[in-house]
Structure formats: structure tokens, C-alpha cells
């Protein structure tokens, strides 16, 4: 997902102040400069960045740091907490109306992904909240916009109400709502035309549609790649319509998605959903707190668990997670995991959720074929080797044999071995790494966050990693 590069920058910035006994003001200044730059590179709005860094700086230099804690730990915690705060504390779900249909209005700029998301959202709410959705095609301006919604509706088996392009959108919505009530649909999603927030005529049209439909939710669809202008756009839509939530689309790209932070901070509008792929099932509830831990390079173990339980037998997934967390993770488990991952979806998407692997997934080196190669390598191991990964570490002849057997290079075999090793270590640490745990860890050893790229190098344990000692 997003934020990998921000993770890298923050890790770099934080590395400088780790390994020191005391945190000086100069250290904090230097770190904040890096944090500021990395957030700006992530497209977080300039003013938001300013506020954020000054808040963090104040907190870091305040009395809290003096409780005898490791300063590095303290700062990581502060940055994490503040990022969570910045993005809003809890994911807020759609408000469903108890009597009568719930009406959702999709609004946003051109090309943000309203039409696709309208369909995705309908299918998601049908599946998770047992609603009976209907879509209304109110985009009469963009050529073939209605066609697009009809096709999406057809693929998802969701009916689409449309009246062509010669009818005023206000009228379409009015008729559509009437039709939906008659037919007993309890979720109505209105797909409106993309428009510029400065186009008064079209903004007025939205205000009217809002009145006519008495929309329960007005969801602003925002492209995750949006730059500094995100704040202007969100503010303008919010002022005109009292937007109830945001949907962040195209989060499966390599964008850092700073727009999400800015919008939340400046307008107070919560991000409710995230679009994470081109498939019509690829939408999920937005979890601000998980995004924050991803920023800090802790991966998104929670998202992984949730995804796994949704797609896979729960017991199987849980025992796998336990194994991963315990650090007793061998090649048999890895193979099983690969098979699960195959069922869950694209490999690179999953890999990004694992702690420290984000950069690897984004480096472009991992395409989904890798999964096949990894399987081939594991299947060329003896049963004993799969159970005891140490055997391979000790013997190069074993590794060479496996390389020959699988048709892959020795380097790849080595890389896989070191990947398993790193994963064991990181999972174990990720399991301990929660805000509550951090409090307790004051005196004890802190988890070290590996430099993500070290994974592919497969040499020098913890080299270039950043240790909070």
C-alpha cells in the first residue's frame, strides 16, 4: 500500500537519534527536519506538516522525555501517536437509516474514481451489511459515464437507474429515489459527475441533489495521488455540501498518500474507505491507526489478519499468525503461507502488509511470479530441511543442491533463507510492538526495525537496520 517511502524517510531520520543515551535539542531539530521533508515528499499539505512537526517537537522536548526512557523509543511513540491523531483516531462507518433507504452521494473531481467506487461500495455494503443496493446514474456530462456505471452494475449484479443524458440530474435523482422506494431497495448510491470545486453551476447542482435526496452520506472521492491541492478541493466540497466522509482511491499505487492526512486534519472529515485495486471487490474500511503503524515501518499485521480471516478459514489463518508471531516459522509454514496468499490475492499487495517488506514489494523486483519460484525452491528441499531452516544456513552444498533442483540460482535460494530468517525475527518483534507494549518496554529491549532493503541483500544481519538501543 502507500507510505512505504515515508517509512523509509522516517526510519532514516529516526536512526540518527538512536543508539544515543541522551536526546539533545539539536537531535530533535535534525530529526524534525527529516520528518518535515519526508512528509512534504509524501504530499502532506505544507501547513499540516508545519503543525505536525512543531507539535511533535514540543512533545519530544517536553518533560515526558525525561522519565528515564530511552529517548529513541519515546520519540517513535510520539511520532506514531501524533500520526494516529492526525489521521483521526477511529474509522467511522456509514450511518445507515433505520426506516427507509440509506442514501449515499458520491462526489469529487473528474477522474477520482467515483463511478468504480460507487459500484465497489454497493457490493461491499451488500456483503457486509446485508443491504439491497441500487445505483443512480446522475453523470450526464462525461461521455459514456452511464455506460460505465451500467457495466459496473451488471458485473456486480446491482441494478442501475438511468434516464439517459437529456434529463436534468436533479430529476433523475428524484425519479430514481421514487423507483428505489417502490422496488424496496434499502441502499441507494448516487453517482454524480466529476466537477471542479470552483465550478459554481455544477456545485449548485450537487447542493440541489443533496436536498432532493436527503442524502445520509456524502462521500468525497479523492485520488490518493493528489498533491497539495487536496486541501483546497476537500475544503470547497465540504463547505458546499457538509461532506460526511472521504474515500481514498488508487491506494494500491506507489503513492505515499499524504493527502489523506491533510484532508483529515484540515476539514475534520474522516476517511471511511480505501480503494485498493482495479477489481470490483478491492475496497476496504480505512484504518487510520494501521496506516500510522505502516508509516513507522511496523507493517500492517492487523490488516493482514483481517484479510486472511475474510478469505481463508479462520483457524488456519490464526494458527499461521501465531506461528509467525512466535518466530517458530519454518519453510513448511512459508509454503502454506504462500498458498494462502495465492488465495488472498496478489502477492505484492500482501507483501506490503508485512513489516519491513514494503520496500521490497515496491522495488518492482517482486512480481507475482516470485511466488512460483519460491514454491519451487521450497519443494526442492527435503522434509527435514523444511522443518529446520538452520540446516541450510550451515551447509552450502545443501543450498547448491536445492538451487539445481529448483532451477533457480543459489542467490535466490540464499535470499529466501534470509527472508525467512528476517521474517521470523520481525514478526516476533511486530507482535510485541503496540502502543501499550511500548510503555512496558521502557527498560527492556526495543524491537529493531530492519532496513527494508536489507531483506533482498540477504547478508549482514541487522546491517543498516535501525536499533533503538
Amino acid at each position, binding site marked *: 500500500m502507500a507510505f512505504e517511502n515515508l517509512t523509509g524517510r522516517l526510519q532514516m531520520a529516526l536512526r540518527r537519534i538512536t543508539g544515543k543515551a541522551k536526546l539533545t535539542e539539536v537531535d530533535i531539530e535534525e530529526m524534525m527536519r527529516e520528518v518535515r521533508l519526508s512528509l512534504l515528499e509524501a504530499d502532506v499539505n505544507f501547513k499540516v506538516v508545519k503543525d505536525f512537526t512543531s507539535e511533535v517537537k514540543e512533545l519530544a522536548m517536553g518533560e515526558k522525555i525525561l522519565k528515564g526512557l530511552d529517548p529513541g523509543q519515546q520519540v517513535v511513540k510520539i511520532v506514531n501517536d501524533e500520526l494516529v491523531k492526525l489521521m483521526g483516531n477511529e474509522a467511522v462507518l456509514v450511518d445507515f437509516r433505520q426506516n427507509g433507504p440509506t442514501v449515499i452521494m458520491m462526489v469529487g*473531481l473528474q477522474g477520482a474514481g467515483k463511478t468504480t467506487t460507487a459500484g465497489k461500495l454497493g457490493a461491499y455494503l451488500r456483503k457486509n451489511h446485508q443491504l439491497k443496493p441500487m445505483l443512480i446514474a446522475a453523470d450526464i456530462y462525461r461521455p459514456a459515464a452511464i455506460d460505465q456505471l451500467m457495466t459496473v452494475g451488471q458485473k456486480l449484479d446491482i441494478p442501475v437507474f438511468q434516464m439517459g443524458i437529456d434529463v436534468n440530474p436533479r430529476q433523475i435523482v428524484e425519479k430514481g429515489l421514487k423507483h428505489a422506494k417502490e422496488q424496496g431497495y434499502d441502499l441507494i448510491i448516487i453517482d454524480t459527475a466529476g466537477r471542479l470545486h470552483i465550478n459554481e453551476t455544477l456545485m449548485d447542482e450537487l447542493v440541489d441533489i443533496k436536498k432532493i435526496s436527503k442524502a445520509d452520506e456524502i462521500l468525497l472521492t479523492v485520488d490518493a495521488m493528489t498533491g497539495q*491541492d487536496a486541501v483546497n478541493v476537500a475544503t470547497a466540497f465540504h463547505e458546499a455540501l457538509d461532506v460526511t466522509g472521504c474515500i481514498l482511491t488508487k491506494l494500491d499505487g506507489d503513492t505515499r498518500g499524504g493527502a489523506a492526512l491533510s484532508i483529515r486534519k484540515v476539514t475534520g472529515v474522516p476517511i471511511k474507505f480505501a480503494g485498493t485495486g482495479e477489481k470490483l471487490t478491492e475496497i476496504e474500511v480505512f484504518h487510520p491507526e494501521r496506516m500510522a503503524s505502516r508509516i513507522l515501518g511496523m507493517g500492517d499485521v492487523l490488516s493482514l489478519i483481517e484479510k486472511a480471516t475474510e478469505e481463508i478459514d479462520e483457524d488456519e489463518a490464526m494458527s499461521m499468525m501465531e506461528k509467525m508471531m512466535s518466530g517458530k516459522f519454518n519453510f513448511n509454514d512459508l509454503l502454506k503461507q504462500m498458498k494462502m496468499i495465492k488465495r488472498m490475492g496478489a502477492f505484492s499487495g500482501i507483501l506490503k502488509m508485512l513489516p519491513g517488506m514494503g520496500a521490497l514489494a515496491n522495488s518492482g523486483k517482486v512480481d507475482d511470479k516470485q511466488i512460483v519460484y519460491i514454491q519451487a525452491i521450497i519443494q526442492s528441499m527435503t522434509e527435514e530441511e523444511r522443518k529446520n531452516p538452520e540446516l541450510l544456513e550451515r551447509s552450502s552444498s545443501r543450498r547448491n543442491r536445492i538451487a539445481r533442483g529448483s532451477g533457480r540460482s543459489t542467490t535466490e535460494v540464499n535470499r529466501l533463507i534470509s527472508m525467512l530468517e528476517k521474517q521470523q525475527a520481525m514478526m516476533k518483534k511486530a507482535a510485541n510492538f503496540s502502543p501499550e507494549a511500548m510503555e512496558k518496554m521502557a527498560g527492556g529491549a526495543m524491537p529493531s526495525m530492519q532496513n527494508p532493503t536489507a531483506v533482498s541483500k540477504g547478508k549482514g544481519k541487522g546491517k543498516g537496520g535501525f536499533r533503538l538501543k
Partner: protein
Amino acid sequence: MGIFQKLFGSKEKRLKAEKYKIGMEKTRRGSLSSLKDVLKQSKKIDEALYDKLEEIFIMADIGVDTVVGFVSELRKEVKKQEISSPIALENIIVDKMFELYLKGEIVNTNIRYNEGGLTVLLFVGVNGTGKTTSIGKLAHKLRKEGKSVMMAAGDTFRAGAINQLKIWGERVGCEVVAKSEGADPSAVIFDAIKHAKEAKVDVLLCDTAGRLQNKVNLMKELDKIKRTIEREIGSSHYETYLVVDATTGQNGLSQAKIFQEVTKLSGIVLTKLDGTAKGGIVLAIRNELGIPISFVGLGEKIDDIDYFDIEDYIYGLFADFFE
């Protein structure tokens, strides 16, 4: 009189640049403090002023690295010219902005037409930047310039994309070669090239599906499209344009970089400049990757596309110097 005033002294020139201004002025009026105000209100050239300038450029999405480099160039120039009045920075800023874009080269973004034969234009980019709309508008423009045009519906993925292009075909009055949804885009474009050659059309504009640059398989699909065109047309009469939405932030750089690796880019089409976003990322793209801007989209109407003009663009960024 500054460079800027000199440049836009002619009424004709200013009238042309107005188009850029209309779109871009809205932010300047908004929360963003204008460059002119900042220079006027500053008493001397100091760190606070440089910080303020950095802020303005970053807010235009020009990007951290490019802005940091740009501001350090400004500092050098201020030192060299021994300037002390903030308002005198105006000329240096405009001057350096040109330098940043031009890089001492003559930027030629003209389409390399194949005189007497077929020229192919391929449009690529991430989802939702306005590829199909830009093709429609550009086809209309080229047609008005006397070229015969044809379109290829290479976006066989997005629902409704083929029909969207067909509607543009009707508006422009040109033929659209299309297959069904889900067809191999390379095959669509191969057929379109064949058909365009037979029909002796001057320019074929090819649409492609929006793809995020980190999707390996989709980028491979694009590579195949590129190879198909190269095989049929050769590399000298074939241009590839990356369509970039003006609201795009720093991800624009990653887009340009990765698309450039797969299919060499002739230039950028900067769309939706009629909003409040300034599209400053294209300056970073030019600065860091050397890719120029070829066209700008300035609205939803069929005529709202133009050849990019760096002078007009900079005028749009700083037009308040005239007010």
C-alpha cells in the same frame, strides 16, 4: 522593467496567456499567499523570506528536491548580483524558472510527422488523468490544423471506455477502431494501424487503459503495445505522451520515471489545469527526468487543449505581477 513585463508587453501575447491564468489564478486568490504579496511585504531578503518562497513553490507541487535546488540557486544569484530589495527577486525567480524548464536547450515538442505517411500518437498514464478526453480534444485540434485523424480504442479494460472514445469520435467526426471489452489492446492498435494506413490517414491517436505504474503485468502489457507500434511504424514517427493530472502530487515523478522506462516518453499532457492545482510536478519531472510538457488541458470543451507554452505557464503562476 523586468523580464516578465518585457515578455508579456505585447497585448497579443498576454491575451493568449490569459487562458492559463484563468485556471490558475483561483488558488492565488485563495488561502495561498501570492508571490507578489510576499515580496512586497518583506523588508529584506532573509531566511524568513526564503522559507516563505519555499512554501509557495511547494504548495504548487513543484516538489521538495526541485524546490530546495531552486531556492539555493536563488540564493547564489542574490549573492552574485548583490541584491537587497525583495521585490528585485521577481526577475530572478522568473528567470530561474525559465532556466529550470529550458535547461539551456531549445525545447521542441512538435509532433514528428511522417510526411505522406502515418504518424502514431500513443497516450499512457495512470487511471483517471484524462487520457480519453485529451485524445478527443487533440484529435479535434489536429483535424482543424488540416490533418486527417483516426482513433484506436486501446482501453479495453475500463467499463465504458470504448463508448466514451466513440462519442468523441462522433464529436470530432473521425473513425474509431475498436474491438470488444477485454480484447488484447495490442491487437486493437495493430488493426487500427493497418486500417489507418489503408485509409491513408495522417494521424492515429491511440487510447490505452489507465494503469498504476507499479503494476508489473500492466506495464508489460504496455511494453507489448509499444513493440507492436514500433514494429509497424518505426520509432521516428511515433510519439508517446504521458497524461498527468494537474492535481497530482509527488507521485507524478514516479509515474514519469517508470512509464519512461517502459515506453520512451515524448512529452507530458498536463490536464485539468483549469482547477486550482498548478501542476508544478511537471517542472520537477522536467528538472529531474528531462521530459518536456507538450500539451495542456484547460477545460472540458472540445477546444480546451493547447500546445504547452512555458511562458504562458509561468505567466499563469505569477500573473499577479501585472495586477
